[in-house]
């Protein structure tokens, strides 16, 4: 594989006595689809906040998109994309306004914004609704747009935080088509999900339990290792060891 886009070595975050992320060590290569799973409270959000430069680690080392987490947080923010189901685009802005707003935030020049907007609107076949408020668009279109906007500034990596929550099964799968396509072009995808079938679409998975890495491997290898038929079984075995009902 190509260069490492994320590399962490014993990355740790403490809040008082509580260790939210405990010595996280992982590497993600260029173009990889990397799934980041864990139960609620396992430390996923804290880890993502560190990797996106929003939260300073307590200890450990990490580089993201070539920047050091301690000294290069601003560089990281400019070289990553981020999208979640909860926060992506503004419903009260039009398609065109949303693109302009987010492209501006990512520091693109006015000229680049104009060109990219036109190109994106054509590519996503949104010409007829470019000046319609986002609220009026079907969820599937919004999602496509949100993803495209998150990678408009051509980041090396995009963080997708539960991108498909509450979405119908067809839209959910179309979204994954887009992920595959982007990964094929060399974009690195770092994705969290509660849908265990989606975990199987990832090249590699990391399952977090109580702030630690409980497993890190390809989905097939993980299923084999735990003698499980699906990732759901693996997850349930790992996420709550000792709890059988």
């Amino acid at each position, binding site marked *: 594989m190509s260069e490492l886009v994320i590399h962490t070595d014993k990355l740790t975050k403490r809040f008082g006595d509580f260790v939210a992320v405990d010595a996280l060590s992982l590497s993600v290569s260029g173009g990889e689809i990397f799934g980041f799973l864990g139960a*609620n409270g396992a430390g996923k959000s804290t880890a993502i906040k560190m990797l996106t430069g929003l939260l300073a680690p307590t200890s450990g080392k990490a580089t993201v998109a070539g920047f050091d987490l301690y000294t290069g947080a601003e560089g990281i923010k400019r070289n990553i994309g981020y999208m979640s189901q909860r926060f992506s685009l503004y419903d009260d802005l039009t398609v065109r306004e949303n693109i302009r707003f987010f492209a501006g935030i990512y520091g693109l020049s006015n000229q680049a914004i104009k060109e990219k907007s036109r190109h994106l609107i054509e590519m996503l076949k949104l010409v007829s609704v470019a000046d319609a408020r986002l609220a009026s668009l079907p969820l599937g279109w919004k999602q496509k747009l949100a993803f495209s906007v998150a990678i408009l500034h051509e980041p090396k990596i995009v963080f997708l935080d539960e991108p498909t*929550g509450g*979405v119908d*099964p067809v839209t959910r799968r179309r979204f994954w088509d887009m992920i595959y396509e982007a990964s094929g072009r060399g974009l690195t995808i770092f994705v969290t999900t509660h849908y265990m079938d989606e975990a199987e*679409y990832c090249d590699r998975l990391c399952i977090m339990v109580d702030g630690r890495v409980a497993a890190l491997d390809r*989905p097939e290898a993980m299923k084999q290792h735990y003698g499980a038929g699906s990732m759901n079984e693996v*997850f349930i075995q790992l996420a709550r060891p000792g709890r059988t009902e």
Partner: protein
Amino acid sequence: MKEAVLVAGVGKRFGAVQALQEINFAVGEGELFGFIGADGAGKTTLFRILVTLLLPDKGRAELLGLDVVRFYRDLRHRIGYMPGKFSLYPDLSVEENLRFFSSVFGTTIEKNYELIRDIYSQLEPFKKRRAGKLSGGMKQKLALSCALVHRPEVLFLDEPTTGVDAVSRQEFWLMLRRLREQGMTTLVSTPYMDEAVLCDRIAFMQEGKILAIDTPSGITALFPKQLFAIRATQTGKLLSALRASPHAASVYAFGSVLHYTDNRPFVNPDELLATLQTEGFTDLSVTVIQPGIEDTFISLMEEKQGSAHE
């Protein structure tokens, strides 16, 4: 079976958006009834009408034989509602929240403890903790306890498991099954298809309409075609190859396999296998499988969209 919920011709519009159109269904006493659908399908609007928080534009709805518009005061004491948004008081402790909700309903925690014991006992070690500081799974258990504390006759749970991890989801459904054993009538909505099989009956919702209502096995019997599971090491390549095939009716990824339907009435799996082998796939397997809830939902969605585009 006696009906606990009866809904006839209910519609609701918000400005230009027709949130619900002509909703009809009935839920029997003691039934665990699921509404499956994506965001925007109308599940929350329907629940808000049923729990007397929103007036329908047309049609009527009855709970326990009482009209939800006329008898809203009586009904509010007899139903339990867990909204989709966490709506307990984050600054009150676990115990204070539960005590508050029981006093609002003129009862005590102790009086109906039997019903919530199973659920609340898991929270008791944390009863002094503020509700805002609980994890997702624990918040959900507390919200369910608060919705049950006055021993309602019908329970409404609006997306109780959204954003909750797979393990907590499983635990939550075990609790619902136990409540069902105690005779509770429960209406629950969810975007997760895998939860549908745990209901007695389910209604598929899409764009304000009910696409189908039946038992889980009745629903999957609606699947109109032969369904194949196809597997290869290079799933992505296989997906493109199948989609490019002139015979493909649908191709969808389901975890590590692809679910495929053909537009010919009957196809031999060996024939499919042979065709794919000529395209260079070597480590293939093709099997005919029983469709699941999600397959059927997709198929019903496509059918509806297909007819809408004609």
